[in-house]
């Protein structure tokens, strides 16, 4: 067992929903021997076959727990585990406490990856998909960001920071607009190519304008304030990783946390929610930002950057970037339809952004 290295595995129509290779089940059992838990039942609840990650739910005499196999590099996982520990132990945040091994460690290394056990929080229910739910989500996110400040990763951990990467991400977006155009140009016979060619200029222009505004923003000053000042972003926050518990909102699945400007999470939550609504709504956006602001105040400078980030063609980019993989499949009728929807939703974005643009003027 010692030399096994966990690799991504293949799934196809012959494998069941939560299939994982046999050796991993054995590894999981080995890992559990490090814990003082009497496990009555063990059930796999999530798999990441393409990356080599998994989550089990454990029923134990001391209540339900989760066992997680983290797919990232061990040194990267250490960063996230340290954060989870800091949030629970130092900041008393509502994130699942980590269960220690028999010898007091917070993880086990097996198969070249880190595993850990945490409390399974019950009950947890998703918030309602309405403005009130959105407000709760945003407040909880702000709280999470505020409490994460001051985290110092353990010495052996990799430094996970995206704070410096904003310009690169924006540049990448602009570059890829060119890729989308070229792919559509060289695959003219595909149904989604003509609509893609028709709209790509507009979205590229949005990205370029966004970049110009970004370069005028206070970003450089923000970076100078350093990672500890800003705290962590969750990176995968949404309607399922923030849920209501008995005593308030809990935040789960922290394995992707990294240092960054916190509004990144907020922006993703807002633009994703607007996409779900198929149109932008000024009331929602305002209320979401305000709810966040109550928990983790946003300065006018940061608000400006949030506006810039919201104005980027995030949804178009997110949905089109797959095109490079198999253009002969991707550029089908369905994608043509999707482009149409994205364009319509995007049209409702601009009046909303114009309306809320000056909300923070003179605040602070």
């Amino acid at each position, binding site marked *: 067992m010692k030399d096994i290295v966990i690799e*991504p595995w293949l799934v196809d129509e012959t494998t069941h929903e939560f299939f994982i290779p046999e050796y991993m089940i054995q590894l999981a059992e080995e890992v559990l021997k490090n814990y003082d838990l009497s496990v009555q039942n063990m059930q796999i609840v999530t798999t990441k076959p393409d990356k080599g990650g998994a989550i089990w739910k454990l029923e134990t005499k001391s209540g339900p727990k989760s066992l997680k196999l983290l797919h990232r590099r061990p040194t990267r996982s250490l960063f996230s585990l340290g954060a989870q520990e800091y949030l629970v132990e130092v900041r008393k945040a509502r994130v699942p406490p980590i269960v220690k091994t028999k010898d007091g460690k917070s993880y086990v290394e097996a198969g070249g990856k880190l595993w850990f056990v945490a409390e399974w929080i019950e009950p947890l229910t998703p918030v309602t998909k309405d403005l009130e739910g959105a407000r709760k989500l945003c407040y909880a996110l702000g709280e999470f960001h505020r409490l994460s400040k001051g985290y110092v990763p353990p010495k*052996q951990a990799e430094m996970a920071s995206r704070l410096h990467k904003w310009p690169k991400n924006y540049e990448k977006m602009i570059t890829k607009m060119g890729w989308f155009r*070229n792919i559509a140009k*060289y695959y003219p016979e595909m149904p989604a190519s003509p609509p893609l060619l028709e709209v790509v200029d507009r979205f590229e222009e949005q990205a370029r304008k966004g970049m110009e505004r970004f370069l005028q923003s206070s970003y450089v000053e923000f*970076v100078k304030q350093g990672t500890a000042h800003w705290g962590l972003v969750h990176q995968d926050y949404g309607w399922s990783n923030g849920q209501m518990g008995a005593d308030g909102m809990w935040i789960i699945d922290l394995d992707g946390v990294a240092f960054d400007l916190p509004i990144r999470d907020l922006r993703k939550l807002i633009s994703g929610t607007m996409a779900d609504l198929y149109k932008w709504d000024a009331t929602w956006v305002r209320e979401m930002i305000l709810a966040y602001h109550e928990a983790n105040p946003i300065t006018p400078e940061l608000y400006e950057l949030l506006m810039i980030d919201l104005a980027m063609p995030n949804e178009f980019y997110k949905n089109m970037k797959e095109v490079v993989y198999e253009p002969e499949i991707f550029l089908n009728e369905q994608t043509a339809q999707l482009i149409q929807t994205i364009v319509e939703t995007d049209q409702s974005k601009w009046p909303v952004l114009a309306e809320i643009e000056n909300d923070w003027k003179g605040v602070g």
Partner: protein
Amino acid sequence: MRILMVCTEKLPVPPLLGGAIQTYISGILPHVSQFHDITVLGISDSSLPEQETIHGVHYVRVPGKIFEIYRENVVRYVEANKFDLIHIFNRPRLVLPIRQAAPDAKMTLSMHNDMFQPEKIDPEEATAAIAEVAYIVTVSDYIGNVIRSLYPQASPKLHTIYSGVDSERFLPGNHPKMQKIRNDIRRAHGLENKTVILFAGRLSRNKGVDKLILALPELAKKFKNLALVIVGSNWFSENDITDYVAYVRALAKRMPVPVVTTGFVPPNEIQNWFAAADLFVCTSQWQEPLARVHYEAMAAGLPIVTTARGGNPEVIFANENGLIVENPEDPSDFADKIAQILSDQSLMRRMGEKGRQLAGSMYHWERVASELLEVWEQAEKIEQAVVSEEQAAGMTIEPLKEDATEQLNRPTPKADAKEKVHSKKNAAASSDKTKKGKAKKERAISMEDNQQTAKQKEAAAERTEPVKSAPAPKQPQTGRHIKPFTITSGNQQTLDASPKTHLNRNQAQAKHDTKHFTIASSH
């Protein structure tokens, strides 16, 4: 001196898996190890022992891959072993931890890319690191200038040492040793009767091969029988295809010109693809430090089209060994420059020959090594100057005995190596029985084989010329230290940035800006 060379945490030395820094290190080792007792500290690899001594060079390998882990191991090693000088490759973040572990060692640093950028190293740490090292050598003026703009105080410590290439391994396709290889490769890949454009490098947005692919439709209108060969290791990888690789593949599929992709080519076979090609194109979109492939293309006698990005243009003598694309984001600029060369057969031939000549006269490892040796020697003196200043100020610092001795004895080749050095030029006649001697003997013979003898004599002449004209001739002991150094008083050094043969527009400017001083005091 006892010298420790600290590699990066990414790839092992020798460069089994390639890598520019690793290639650089193994290129200079045979030369620098003749003068100093060298230990190379790098990362472990399953196919390499943790410790070994080859040709007098000690290799120590510790777990790495992740910087933090590597740093810990490096510090532990440095704490347990004493060195006179520690040379760190491309990791300014190792400077302070190593300084703590080795308070007395002299330190030098070589920079191969942008590791001094604020997102790579905290400015405070960078400032402290710069203060700790005696010299920072860079692979191009571009890299030096970037560091200078971020940290002006580094300016007097900066010194460009261009990298090198093994011109006996990278050979033109018409060289007797390469003709068969060239023909075999071309036959195997359907490239017979084609004009082969070569790209070699990582498939990434920064390296920009997509721009070259997009230039193909335009080129196909002007030239028949073109083919593009892409030597890029990450083309076929199944698991981890990046968006970029996917994009390039999708484009290549629809081109009017065949695009041959090689997948991973072992570093020791890469020269075969250079020999099979007719024109080399470097498509860097980013501010490239100065891609090694330029030297390799020159040695292989290929005309070069490269981009006006970073250090790349520093090795291109326009219209002599290649052309520079001023707008690398525009595929038609590539099409123009490529067409310009392809439509003039005699220009194409002349450029290739010029490249080959430059590789032999300027971009060879011995020159790289001798420049680095010179830096080390100067570094040794600087520390002494500091000590003496402090002594003058009444501080009680015991002068190290070793230092005192070394002050008297100029660094000379290690006793056992000295003979080999002298025998090198006449290696064919030498009776040296060591492996090292044999290797050199074989090399010397192959040099005679390759019908370039006249050119090499010329090259040798060029090599020594700067020494003759050196303004401050501290006679280099072997006549191989071609770069003259001048030193200002105290801890301020000014380096004459390059030998005369090196000058291009950037350097000419740098030289113009450089003030010359002579040594104010030598103890």
